């Protein structure tokens, strides 16, 4: 982890950031649903220059078996960065950072899942960062929750995350990599939008309590915007299926599970190099 330094200007005299954004502006976000064939649920997100794939397997048998829980599903999360996702090659072995993020992401997403419906089973969420540019844990949570919905797993809510932070003594929304490294603070937040509960909250840097409060509420605003995009992405996929199956045949879009639209699949696999 780099220490936060203030050197070059991160906000121009016109009040714009290094990538031309306003202080409270998100990077462009694109979410696609059902991007993988084998997984029970999957989704892909481009958040600025971040490119992240999420896959969900389960509910399925737990391995090793002794980990299975009698009263609920064993919910596991793996956040992992591809070796080519960063400026310098990242060792593919899970780093301490990835282990910590896997833990906090699991803790952020698990409350949204009706785990008690699937005792003795396991649900595995895999988040692969293919390209990183700051804010990957937020993008990872956002896309993982969409993938869970795509898997047809009963959810209380779609968990959504967004960060705010402090650069050049100003509170801003959604830090990119340069802003994260050279800025003064980063505050990632995940919420359950239906209730407004905060399920992930981390922060590093240096902020007064006034700045902290401002950043927290700005991040919550960002979450709401991203949440609308999650819903749109899910609607888009399942609306298409509805059309394919004939409008009358499928009643509830959310319950139609399984068949992944052929067209969308191809579009995705051509779009991104997922060297396996």
């Amino acid at each position: 982890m780099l220490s936060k330094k203030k050197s070059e200007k991160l906000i121009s005299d016109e009040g714009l950031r290094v990538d031309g954004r306003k202080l409270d502006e998100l990077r462009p976000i694109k979410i696609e649903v059902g991007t993988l064939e084998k997984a029970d649920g999957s989704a892909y997100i481009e958040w600025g220059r971040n490119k992240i794939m999420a896959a969900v397997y389960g509910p399925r048998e737990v391995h090793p078996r002794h980990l299975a829980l009698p009263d609920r599903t064993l919910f596991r999360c793996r956040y992992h960065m591809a070796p080519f996702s960063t400026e310098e090659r990242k060792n593919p072995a899970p780093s301490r950072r990835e282990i910590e993020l896997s833990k906090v992401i699991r803790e952020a997403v698990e409350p949204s899942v009706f785990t008690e419906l699937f005792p003795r089973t396991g649900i595995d969420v895999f988040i692969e960062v293919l390209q990183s540019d700051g804010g990957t844990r937020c993008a990872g949570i956002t896309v993982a929750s969409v993938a869970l919905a795509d898997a047809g797993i009963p959810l209380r809510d779609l968990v959504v995350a967004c960060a705010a932070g402090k650069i050049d003594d100003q509170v801003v929304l959604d830090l990119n990599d340069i802003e994260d490294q050279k800025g003064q603070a980063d505050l990632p937040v995940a919420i359950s939008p239906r209730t407004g509960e905060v399920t992930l909250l981390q922060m590093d840097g240096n902020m007064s309590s006034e700045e902290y409060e401002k950043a927290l509420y700005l991040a919550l605003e960002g979450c709401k915007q991203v949440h609308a995009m999650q819903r749109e992405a899910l609607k888009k996929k399942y609306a298409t299926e509805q059309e394919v199956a004939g409008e009358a045949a499928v009643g509830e879009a959310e319950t139609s599970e399984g068949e992944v639209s052929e067209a969308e699949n191809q579009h995705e696999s051509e779009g991104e190099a997922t060297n396996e």
Partner: protein
Amino acid sequence: MSDSYGIPVSIKTKRIDELIVQDKRLDGRGLLDYREIKVETGLIGKANGSALVSLGNTKVLVGIKIETGTPFPDTPEDGVLTVNAELVPMASPSFEAGPPREEGIELARVVDRGIRESKAIDTKKLCIVPGKLVFITFVDIYVLDFDGNLFDASALASMLALTTAKMKEFSLEDGELSYKDSLISLPLQNHVFEVTMAKIGDKLVVDPSLEEESAINAQITIAVDDAGNICATQKSKTGSFMPQEIIEAVKIAKNKVIELREKVLGGLTP
């Protein structure tokens, strides 16, 4: 964490929930009270600095070792800080031997974040030859007895160990590092303390014990420096907080840190 005292967690949880309505806790503390804090420093002679902190029955020993090494390429003029935590099996029936697991890694990283982001150590002063040779400060957290709230106990022990750490005075002659016999303190320029709060019912309680940790599912840790600024936050466990509860937690943390600083740094000369 699982309860290891034989009393079903659900019974204790019920009792904890009943008490909280009357602003009471199982061990009789007020909602914002720490358990008794005892500190002892310098008990490991071979380490550059050490501190043993007891927070009620939780015991954490931190040792500081200062060694030379190469700096990170992106910070060639800064000494390096490394924080590691060992949840040794003697500390709890739920700890196992082996490489650190996620609890230990999270603990080390949250303590690290507080120290690093508060810039408690003036790392520039630990640079010997820019880009080539710097001092690495190893903070090793050793959990000896686990009865809840490892974050605060470990952060406190780390801060105390750093504050009291000594290293040999050094100089650079013709590119050669040489040491003198005299001892100097680590170059510190800030202090940071962490305050952990648990949410029980709709109330926040400071310094959750293991019993409370087993019963609750939402916990927040906030690191505050000398200036009263927030340097790190970590929500842990699967529960959630409402935004106004987070703001409230920040307020409580700021007040508790003033108290902690007076209590533990008062008798020490940095």
